[in-house]
């Protein structure tokens, strides 16, 4: 997505003031500043660019009381899972934890948060912001300017078929479904409960929400009956997806923060489910390698990831590239007996094996070959 010209980012559509109910509110009531000042500097003194962040209660909450009351708990708002997954791998030394969780992540990670405004009014700050449509409030956040601004490297490329040689997700290709068709407001706005891991969110979409007949007890699909609760939907219906292997953060000679990631790779690996619970009862799930490595925060503090092995580097994943027919679900033998589809010990470098012990499939547990 091309960045906006600087003037476009702050250009308000004159009609917004007449057509949108939010246009009836005085600019100063939400953004502050001094409309009577004669200079740019004076006029913008104390201006709040995003009045919905960090506390939407005093602005959005004036009218949207119920949403604003719980909005602060949304994972998009809190990024609580960033903190918990990095925190789990960090040394127990309070100095190290503070240095990484507060300083380094404050500089490099936490700006990825969203807010009411970053979904409904402007592009997210991560992509340098800018009004989406002349300050008109978007009841449904536009997929291209908002959702995929942040979820671009993996989800967008998978869902829209931008990974070379791979088709778009069937929900998009056949029905043109946008993100909000599955990820509805209730999920996005939060429930008031803070989750330390995104797959623990209780109102996440489920395939069963729409595909009841083919997944329920009366399903006529034999493969569904056989594999129910043993294999996640993605194991049979995803195609190759992106895996990233590392990341390094630091500051350049001018003090500007940077990150460096090595080339990502497309791949497909089935592994053991590290997250088995009533919502995810499956034994086998798709796994994605995430951009984590022991030296990621070395610029700030050496060997911070003293407990690197506490979490797998191949994590539970739900790739957004669903197909009805995939290379591994054409017939039984497309998956059974094909060990290259599974994450085996030899696929994992020795230094990451301890971290991935819970997800690596032991050879004797591979699905047996079928004719």
């Amino acid at each position, binding site marked *: 997505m091309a960045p906006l*010209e*600087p*003037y476009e980012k*702050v*250009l*308000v*559509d*004159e009609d917004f*003031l007449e057509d949108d109910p939010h246009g009836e509110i*005085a*600019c*100063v009531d939400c*953004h502050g*500043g001094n*409309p*009577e*000042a004669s200079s*740019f500097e004076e*006029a913008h003194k104390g201006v709040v660019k995003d009045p919905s962040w960090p506390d939407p209660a005093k602005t959005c909450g004036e009218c949207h009381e119920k949403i604003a009351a719980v909005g602060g708990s949304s994972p998009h708002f809190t990024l609580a899972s960033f903190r918990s997954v990095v925190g789990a791998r960090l040394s127990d030394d309070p100095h190290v934890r503070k240095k990484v969780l507060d300083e380094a992540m404050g500089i490099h990670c936490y700006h990825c948060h969203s807010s009411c405004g970053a979904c409904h009014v402007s592009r997210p700050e*991560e992509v340098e912001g800018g009004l989406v449509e002349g300050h008109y409030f978007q009841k449904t956040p536009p997929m291209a300017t908002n959702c995929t601004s942040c979820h671009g*490297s993996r989800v967008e490329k998978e869902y829209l078929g931008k990974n070379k040689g791979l088709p778009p997700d069937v929900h998009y290709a056949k029905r043109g479904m946008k993100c909000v068709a599955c990820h509805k407001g209730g999920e996005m706005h939060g429930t008031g409960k803070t989750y330390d891991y995104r797959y623990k969110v209780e109102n996440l979409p489920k395939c069963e929400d729409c595909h009841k007949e083919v997944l329920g007890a009366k399903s006529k699909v034999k493969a569904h009956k056989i594999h129910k609760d043993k294999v996640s939907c993605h194991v049979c219906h995803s195609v190759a997806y992106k895996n*990233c292997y590392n*990341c390094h953060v*630091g*500051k*350049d000679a*001018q003090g*500007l*923060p*940077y*990150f*460096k*990631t*090595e*080339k*990502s790779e497309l791949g497909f690996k089935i592994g053991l489910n590290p997250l088995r619970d009533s919502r995810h009862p499956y034994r086998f799930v798709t796994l994605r390698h995430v951009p984590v490595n022991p030296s990621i925060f070395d610029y700030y503090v050496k060997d911070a990831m003293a407990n690197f092995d506490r979490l797998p580097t191949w994590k539970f994943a739900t790739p957004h590239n669903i197909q009805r027919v995939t290379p591994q679900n054409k017939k039984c033998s497309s998956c059974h007996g094909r060990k290259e589809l599974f994450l085996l010990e030899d696929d994992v470098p020795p230094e990451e094996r301890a971290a991935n012990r819970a997800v690596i499939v032991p050879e004797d547990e591979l699905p047996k070959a079928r004719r």
Partner: protein
Amino acid sequence: MEGKGGQKRVALVTAFFFIAVFSLIQLGRAQEESSCVKCHTSPKTLIELTRALAAKKPPKKSAETKGEG
């Protein structure tokens, strides 16, 4: 009769007074809005302003950033 006429005049004056006060409040509010709205709805003004500001501001992003986020 004169008494009724006097009451009418008082009512009219009172009504005009409130209308005038209300209009002044609205005018004041509109004027307060106008400087924000005037600039932020004018592409020409914003182009000039943002160019001048961009020339003064140092870059925000490091050239050392590499790879996908």
